[in-house]
């Protein structure tokens, strides 16, 4: 499981998890779950299109993710945000379907793009993926204060000159970059699970944002490692494991939150009574 070509998978997956965990924290904070789901579908179209014209799929991924992010950001200001996101999402998928139909390979290609493939990243691609990852984290660090402010106290942020739609646009672009680097291994349809489940669980366990981010990354790493191992052993798609494990993370987080609030109620009742 740890031989030469698998090391690519482990390395890439770890980078994916770190970026997913960090970006995902803000996705959950800002309630951008739908956008985080829509943008990777743009990546799918991009990879298919790049495949068609013989360009490196990673380039197509990046370009189309970016287009999707910009499209959602700008159209979303004029129409209803959730409607626009839904339509952009399906339009991207339809384009992807078109591109794939034009190329000779169809079935296995769709599958690995949508659901992930352990060997999705070759050793030559690790460096660009790592670079994109560093870029994403760098962007998040740069935007950290703005993101926190506009997510938690939007009116105050507005008053202090942090324009909401600029921040939103920047954040969508960050999601696009994170997506572009993660799709090959985890798959377009499942990457956003990684950006939602672990971070949501992390937020259930702690209120402090720094701790939450670290916890989110830790949970994402565990999820991804188990997914890779599971996929290697059973040959089942990586995406299946990611989706299921993310749901488990979320479930555990929710369960903990419910238990904790129930305990608090019991304590307050007990102290009130005696």
């Amino acid at each position: 499981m740890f031989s030469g070509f698998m090391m690519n998978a482990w390395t890439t997956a770890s980078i994916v998890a770190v970026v997913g965990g960090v970006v995902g924290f803000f996705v959950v904070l800002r309630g951008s779950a739908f956008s985080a789901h829509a943008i990777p579908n743009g990546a799918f179209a991009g990879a298919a299109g790049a495949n068609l014209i013989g360009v490196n799929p990673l380039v197509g991924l990046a370009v189309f993710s970016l287009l999707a992010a910009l499209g959602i950001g700008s159209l979303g200001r004029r129409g209803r945000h959730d409607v626009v996101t839904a339509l952009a999402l399906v339009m991207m998928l339809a384009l992807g379907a078109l591109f794939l139909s034009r190329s000779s390979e169809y079935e296995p290609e769709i599958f690995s793009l949508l659901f992930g493939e352990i060997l999705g990243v070759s050793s030559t691609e690790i460096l660009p993926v790592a670079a994109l990852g560093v870029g994403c984290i760098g962007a998040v660090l740069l935007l950290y204060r703005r993101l926190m402010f506009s997510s938690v106290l939007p009116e105050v942020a507005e008053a202090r000159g942090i324009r909401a739609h600029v921040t939103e646009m920047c954040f969508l672009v960050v999601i696009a970059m994170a997506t572009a680097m993660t799709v090959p291994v985890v798959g377009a349809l499942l990457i956003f699970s990684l950006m939602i489940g672990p971070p949501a669980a992390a937020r259930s366990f702690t209120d402090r944002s720094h701790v939450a981010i670290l916890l989110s990354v830790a949970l994402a790493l565990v999820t991804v490692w188990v997914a890779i191992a599971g996929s290697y052993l059973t040959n089942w798609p990586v995406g299946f494991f990611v989706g299921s494990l993310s749901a488990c993370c979320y479930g555990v987080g929710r369960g903990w939150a419910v238990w904790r609030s129930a305990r608090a109620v019991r304590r307050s009742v007990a102290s009130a009574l005696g």
Partner: protein
Amino acid sequence: MQVALLLGGLVAGISSVVGVFTVLRGQSFGGHALTDVSTAGGSGALLIGMAPVAGFVVGGVVGAGVMEAIGVQRPRGRDLATGIVLGAATGLAALFLYLDSTTSATTGASQQILFGSIFVVASSTVPYVIVFGVVTLALICLVYRPLLLSSLSNDIARARGVPVRVVGALYMLALALSVGLSSLVTGTILSTALLIGPPAAALRVTRRMNRAIAVAVLVGVGATWLGVLLAYDSYYWGASQNGWPVSFFIVAVVFVAYLASGLPARWAGRKAERATPAQAENAAR
């Protein structure tokens, strides 16, 4: 070809009607998530040898039930829960599709489930589609007024004694059925387009509900027919005898329709600007 047009039109019409309420209730994400749960259902059905349409519908109903059950009050929490369900269901679908490809001889299972198989629908499924379609429409007719009220304003509906939870549950059932059916036509991933696009376009053009539903149905059915015709024609385009996917055309037409629906408002805005100087002149005289 006629079967494709008939089925497509029927399914598109139903999606548009149900979709009006989906858009009004701001549940675009939920509607989309249901389509992904349908994917799991359809691919699961294929695995155990049932017709995908049965799996689509069952998957949709189960998914709707789960989402109702874990429904969280705050919208943000609801989005997260929806996303998690979507992710888990998609992961399951991935597994089923993979097992499909290894166990049975069905090639193109992914393509069929995800992107639609309108041209290869078995004629034995047509009765099912019609029956389920009628049931869905009947459901909507049954709860039309309360549903409309609770979609526009939940609080007012509750204040007026509308059994909001029951109405909501019936609506979710109709949604699940509609999603299951349209998955047959455009595939699960893209049935969102028929659910959301035509209603959204219609609601941008008119505020009157009856008109909105009519416009939505027109746009939905029109887009589907146009898409089917274009797909049929695309076999003759270019050198390769390989048609373009029908789902692409349908989605593209819907998308263009939505963008176009924003134009009347802009024209009205510009007309108002141009009218003002003339009105000022009249007033000055």
